[in-house]
């Protein structure tokens, strides 16, 4: 049975206005014995949380009653992690991580927990977890711990369009409906910051399509509320030299082309 517990050290966010992001405990912590303070897996999750927290603070600076915030949920996705609940809670407080809620679920029910917690974006490096969540309508993005370290002064979110979908590369790409809710609020957060020197940046990459398919995705994202900042149309050019320059924190795979049209 999954349970959700609030982090009393962190201010709770308004469920209607917050952008709810879930990240798995394995992305954040190393394994450890129950009762121990768990070590952080690497700097990635901590930096990500810090960026979101800093943006929350800046939004609140404009208006103290600001409800538009990032709301981060830490979720366990297997029974082993589920058993470590008190370690996870104490380790989170120990490291000062800005996590509002903990959701202790296992392999069977984590997707349901994502849904009941109104998670709009699920972050994990586990392809199968991401696929399961996407299948049930929860937008997922893959984290890559090996990627060249992205900047710590700007959260860079990449939307990537591929023509080919290989079965083992993770969740199926999101269509326009799937990103709708998330995009509208995330776009609103972006609009509170200026065009230059923003702490949040949206990147669009079209790997295989033509410039017109890239332009079309630009417009679709725009109408969903996301004004892309940087756009790259590779049209088949190899992506390995370009990707390290883009430095995304995570990538949301999209597919807006409707072949029936």
């Amino acid at each position, binding site marked *: 049975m999954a349970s959700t517990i609030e982090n009393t050290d962190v201010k709770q966010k308004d469920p209607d206005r917050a952008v709810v992001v879930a990240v798995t405990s394995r992305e954040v912590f190393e394994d450890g014995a129950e009762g121990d303070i768990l070590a952080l897996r690497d700097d990635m999750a901590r930096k990500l949380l810090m960026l979101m927290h800093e943006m929350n603070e800046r939004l609140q600076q404009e208006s103290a009653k600001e409800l538009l915030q990032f709301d981060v949920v830490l979720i366990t996705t297997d029974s082993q992690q589920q058993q470590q609940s008190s370690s996870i809670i104490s380790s989170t407080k120990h490291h000062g991580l800005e996590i509002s809620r903990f959701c202790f679920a296992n392999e069977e029910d984590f997707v349901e927990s994502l849904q009941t917690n109104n998670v709009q974006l699920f972050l994990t490096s586990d392809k199968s977890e991401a696929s399961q969540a996407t299948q049930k309508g929860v937008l997922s993005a893959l984290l890559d711990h090996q990627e060249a370290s992205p900047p710590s002064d700007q959260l860079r979110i990449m939307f990537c369009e591929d023509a080919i979908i290989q079965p083992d590369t993770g969740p199926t790409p999101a269509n326009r409906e799937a990103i709708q809710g998330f995009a509208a609020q995330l776009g609103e957060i972006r609009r509170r910051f200026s065009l*230059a020197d923003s702490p949040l940046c949206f990147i669009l990459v079209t790997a295989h399509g*033509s410039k017109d398919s890239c332009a079309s995705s630009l417009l679709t994202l725009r109408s969903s509320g996301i004004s892309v900042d*940087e756009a790259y*149309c*590779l*049209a088949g050019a190899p992506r390995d*030299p*370009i990707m390290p*320059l883009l430095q995304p924190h995570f990538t949301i795979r999209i597919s807006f082309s409707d072949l029936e049209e």
Partner: protein
Amino acid sequence: MSEIKPIESAPTEDSAEETDWAAAKAFFDSLKTEKPRPPKPRYAVTIAVSSRTLFNMVEERKIYEEEGLEKYVAHQVEHESEPLKPGAAFPFVKALMTVNTRLRALYPDSEELFDIVLMTNNHAQVGVRLINSINHYDLTIERFCMTGGKSPIGYLKAYMTNLYLSKDSEKVTEAIEEGIAAATMFMPDTETQLSDTQLRVAFDGDAVLFSDESEIIVKKHGLDTFFQHEKQFENKPLAQGPLKCFLEALGKLQRKFYAKNERMNCPIRTFLVTARSAASSGARVLKTLRSWGLEIDEALFLAGAPKGPLLQKIRPHIFFDDQMFHIEGAKELGTISAHVPYGIGQKYNRGKLIEQPEKKE
């Protein structure tokens, strides 16, 4: 300087590159239009153009400078269905497309073509107007980088760029320092009728195709010493300059036409327009080109005469020179000019040493 790319028969590709390539090929093949798909970057001659060289954005630039970024982007978005007017690099790009059409006819399966990439640090929302404009003029530009303010230099390298054209001399200087052929483009003061069947490219010699070693001698020791020096070292090839590899890339494509008996009808013609004189210092230049295995179609030795009137006759789609003095002269008489900020010529203006301000950190 930017290395020439491998020949087509070399079996080098890794599987990730192949996968991306195959997917794009499949995509373009499935399109209902007759649109030619972009060539494989590894074999193509990649020309990166900025938005302000491809299109005339003078009015829009004013809005940016006077009213700021947000107003500028809003203006562009508001007018995004209105195509922009052609810029300085526009005729050059059209000429590249003409060459591609001829190459595709003779070599339908070859990837050795010009690949034109839009490289801009404009915000992606401005990009919609740029794409609409590209479509309005039917330009074959499929690849672009809209970096939203970041420097394009890393992307130039990633795209294996053979030539970068921009209005921003700082970016151009940075590119040259990184070994990429680059030039700052200038719109001519009057419009000239240019060939629509042949790409015509004119190069200055010293500090463009060749290093600035000889120019240093002129500036420091005068013309007489220069003539003596060049005669003495007639048989020693000059070191290469920033645009040498681009000339080499053009030569490679020219040879593809020669191989099919099209020498008399070749759609690429190259010109050397140098202030050197044929008698006293010209031999070294021709011998250097020969030692590099490069051909230039026409070599014009001016012996110090102004370049403007001659260029008016040549009507190149682009003329490269390292000295602003020559650029201005060419521009006044209707030649599309591109300044190569390289070598000792940058420290002088009309023969006098410029007082250099402290370099910005």
